[in-house]
């Protein structure tokens, strides 16, 4: 085998400009941050926002090309572009809901925004990974930033507990992922994804090294996407984290983890899908059932949304278990799109309720919201309905798309289970609506929403996404299916061809 020399690597800077932009932005904030007072942290937020917008625009230029950069370590294709765009949008909305929050809570702005950008960088790396080491690198960059963000409220014991739990379990899971990568390397002789696919095609279905590796990878990714039984960290971490960070975790981390998970499994381990799809069948069934059933008894909105996020991961895993259907990839990407906007909006409403360190994250805190803030309540109601899967909102069309992919693959019973689960989920989502519209009682005073334009825009973005993606799904479906096809359609190159 050829020694891995620098000369063999093709340095393509242009396709990774979005990544570079985010990294540079994060470093700029780190550098100028100390000279800016915490009261003015909004200006740092604006720098972060500008960085994200710049990266967003740069990403648009990478669309349509289908290149492998850095000798195959990075795959810059529409798949990575799709995920980068959604991740950047999620990052922008997260920053938008943080601007007032960080100032109100008196958090250290420089570290906060820099960490968000570093987290986003890691997520984008995962989306653009062309080999298993880059996936690991992206995962770690993202995770370390998010561990710190979760524990950002240093004086809040819940935040500390959340960070510690998330960190310990996360580190543990990373070990599994790394071990899985090592075993796959042992079985195939390569860490580049394209050659992995070429290697596993050739009759490796019963190779014990590969199978163990695949199993370890399932565990590693399972932790990050919060699949049952690897979900234990989720509710505590979601509850303890600052609320905008909870949104960032529920959307950004999940997007990135699924970006890696999907690319590795659906595309590059696709040839041995018979070996892992049954495992995912079981995990999907467990994930949606446990997530939904435990969500029923939550009184804390952030914990409820945490279990809801677990349940939604279950629906996505249902799509993965349907790997044999040609629709599966597009369906999952579309689902993630709708899920992201809906969840961002929902968390933004939760942020709107909080003010100056007062924790207002009980579901009963929503009581009477429809009378005091009818617009906010209507938005939250729409987000809850979208998560339940009521047409014509994004959540419904996503579910419909995934269900049809799964039925196409013959997973009738799993789809029926998913439908039963959706019914269960209606109970806890409707509960929020009932609190807002029906129950009488003391109403929690809320700072005027019009005084917080960034937060208002964040909610509006979530709302626009939830409605438009559901009402006019065709172009988004095309984009999702096209993005997946771009990654899946690339012929499986041999290692030698890459290192030529």
């Amino acid at each position, binding site marked *: 085998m050829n020694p891995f020399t620098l000369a063999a690597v093709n340095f393509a800077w242009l396709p990774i400009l979005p990544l570079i932009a985010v990294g540079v932005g994060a470093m700029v904030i780190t550098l100028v941050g100390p000279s800016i007072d915490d009261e003015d942290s909004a200006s740092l937020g604006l720098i972060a926002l500008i960085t994200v917008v710049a990266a967003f625009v740069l990403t648009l230029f990478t669309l349509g090309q289908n290149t492998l950069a850095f000798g195959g370590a990075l795959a810059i294709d529409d798949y990575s572009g799709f995920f980068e765009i959604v991740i950047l949008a999620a990052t922008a909305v997260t920053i938008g809901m943080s601007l007032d929050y960080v100032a109100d809570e008196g958090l250290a702005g420089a570290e906060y925004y820099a960490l968000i950008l570093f987290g986003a960088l890691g997520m984008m790396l995962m989306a653009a990974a062309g080999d298993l080491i880059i996936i690991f690198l992206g995962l770690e960059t993202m995770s370390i930033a998010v561990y710190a963000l979760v524990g950002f409220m240093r004086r809040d014991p819940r935040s500390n507990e959340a960070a510690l739990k998330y960190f310990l379990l996360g580190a543990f899971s990373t070990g599994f992922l790394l071990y899985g990568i090592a075993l796959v390397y042992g079985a195939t002789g390569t860490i580049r994804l394209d050659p992995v696919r070429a290697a596993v095609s050739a009759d490796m279905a019963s190779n014990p090294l590969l199978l163990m590796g695949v199993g370890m990878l399932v565990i590693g990714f399972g932790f990050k996407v919060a699949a049952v039984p690897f979900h234990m960290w989720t509710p505590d971490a979601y509850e303890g984290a600052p609320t905008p960070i909870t949104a960032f975790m529920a959307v950004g981390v999940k997007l990135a983890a699924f970006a890696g998970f999907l690319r590795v499994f659906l595309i590059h381990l696709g040839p041995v899908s018979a070996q892992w799809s049954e495992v995912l069948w079981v995990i999907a069934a467990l994930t949606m059932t446990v997530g939904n059933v435990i969500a029923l008894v939550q009184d804390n909105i952030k914990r409820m949304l945490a279990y809801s996020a677990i349940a939604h991961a279950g629906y996505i895993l249902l799509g993965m278990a349907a790997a044999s259907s040609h629709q599966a990839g597009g369906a999952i990407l579309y689902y993630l799109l709708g899920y992201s906007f809906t969840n961002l909006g929902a968390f933004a409403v939760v942020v709107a309720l909080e003010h100056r360190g007062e924790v207002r994250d009980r579901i009963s805190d929503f009581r009477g919201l*429809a*009378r005091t803030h*009818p617009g906010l309540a209507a938005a939250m109601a729409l987000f809850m*309905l979208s998560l*339940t899967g*009521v*047409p*014509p909102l994004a959540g*419904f069309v996503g579910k*419909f798309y995934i*269900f*049809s992919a799964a*039925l*196409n693959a013959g997973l*009738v019973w799993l*789809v*029926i289970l998913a*439908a*039963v689960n*959706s*019914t269960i989920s*209606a*109970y806890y989502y*409707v509960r929020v*609506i*009932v609190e807002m*519209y*029906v*129950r009488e009682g003391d109403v929690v005073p809320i700072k005027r929403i019009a005084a917080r334009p960034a937060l208002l825009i964040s909610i509006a973005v979530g709302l626009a996404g939830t409605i438009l993606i559901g009402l006019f*799904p*065709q172009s988004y*479906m*095309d984009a999702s*299916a096209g993005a997946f096809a771009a990654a899946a359609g690339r012929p499986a190159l041999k290692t030698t061809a890459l290192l030529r």
Partner: protein
Amino acid sequence: MAGFWLTLLIFVPTLGAFGVLLQSDEESIWRSAFIFSLIPLAISIYLFAIFDPHQATYQFVERYSWIPQFGISYHVGMDGISLFLVILTTLLVSLCLLYSGGGDIEVRPREFCFMMLLLETGLLGALLAIDIFLFYLFWEVMLVPMYLMIGIWGHGRKIYATFKFVLFTMAGSLLMLIAIIYLVGVARTQLGHLTFDLPDLYRIALSPTEARWLFAGFAIAFAIKVPMWPVHTWLPDAHTEAPTAGSVMLAGVMLKMGTYGFLRFAIPLFPEVAIQATPIFMALAVIGIIYGALVAMVQPDLKRIVAYSSISHLGFVMLGIFALNPQGLEGATYQMLNHGVSTGALFLLVGMLYVRRHTREVSEFGGLWKSIPMYAAVFMFVMLSSVGLPGLNGFVGEFLILLGTFFKSERAAAVAVFGVVLGALYMMWAYERVMWGPITKKVNETIKDLTAREIAVMVPLIAAILFMGLYPRLILTRMEPSINLLLNRVEAAQARLDAAHARALAALAAPARTVAEK
């Protein structure tokens, strides 16, 4: 025929809903909502006037591609079955808004009108959709305003009623969603392209096992909505706790979505299974008739009496549908309208009493005939229509249904007739206790009779009751072609079943014959 009438019909209420949000004072909210509800009413009456009574297929069809990747289109049309349900919907919405503005709804009128008009969009869309995905969409959309209506403006255990309503309906509709997707998957393998279009889906052939499961998926969703015994338990709670207008819409139109679903989807898509399932559905329908009537008899609450009477009446509709013959189906379709008019009127009357006394307990009343004679007279008239007095609308429907059932199964008809007797019994008994005898409670001596607004609400319903009882031909002739089209499908399926049966017999007989020849 290209046109825009149906789109206008479906979305004018949505437009109105948002228009109402802009109004500020209570007076103009009610006025604008009512005016907005008159537009679809006018359109539906105009469509009735230009409706071609001889055409069996869809009229005023509109079709635009919506999600081409899945072959989903915005495809709407109207036939003889949906025409009158559409008119019923637009009429009841207008009357409900007119009535509710008179003091029945005391809080948050803007939201109420918004929900009411949104509900109208959902109902009309579901009735007019030809694309099955579009149908499902509207089917779910109408759920949301209804449960908010029960939740916000309801009484008593409204939160419990809301949850029960949502969970029952969601459970059913998700099973239907799976059946829809599976059906479309079969359609793709057979027709070569993805389509959610109903006429396309009618063309596909299913294996008996597939058809049975898919029929079950649809039938459970619709049976919950009807509601058939034993999945009826959400209805009494939802009805009792809902505000008057909510009960009227729920009983008047929303329950019909279940029976309409059987006529439009479950039976024509899977006619063989429908034929085979006839005994089960007839039995459940008869149980529902008797059970609803018996339970209605012992209710202490007037509204619960009407609610349980709905279960009984909808049992008749289901019985007529599964008679699967012209008389039964026409009777059932007619009875859907009757029930909407009569039960809607009964709920309105009970609501009027509630506004005056803030109670609906039968024992709280007595001798009302003396203090509010006009109210009592109207109540009497509507009650007689509900129990099926000849000359009024209820009789036509019940008679046709029983006739059709008799042709199909004499036993079922014989038992169902008891339902008619029991219906007369519980209604008249309730009437007697409320209206006749001496005035037992002092407050009842001074309560007010019908106001001008209430009379205006009741007059169109009374007119409809009389008209539908005296001149049913006008409606029946327009239904007939569409119903015959449905029956053709059923008869073709019956022929296929008979042929298969004959083949099976021949196969059984063949070895016997060879033995005999030897």
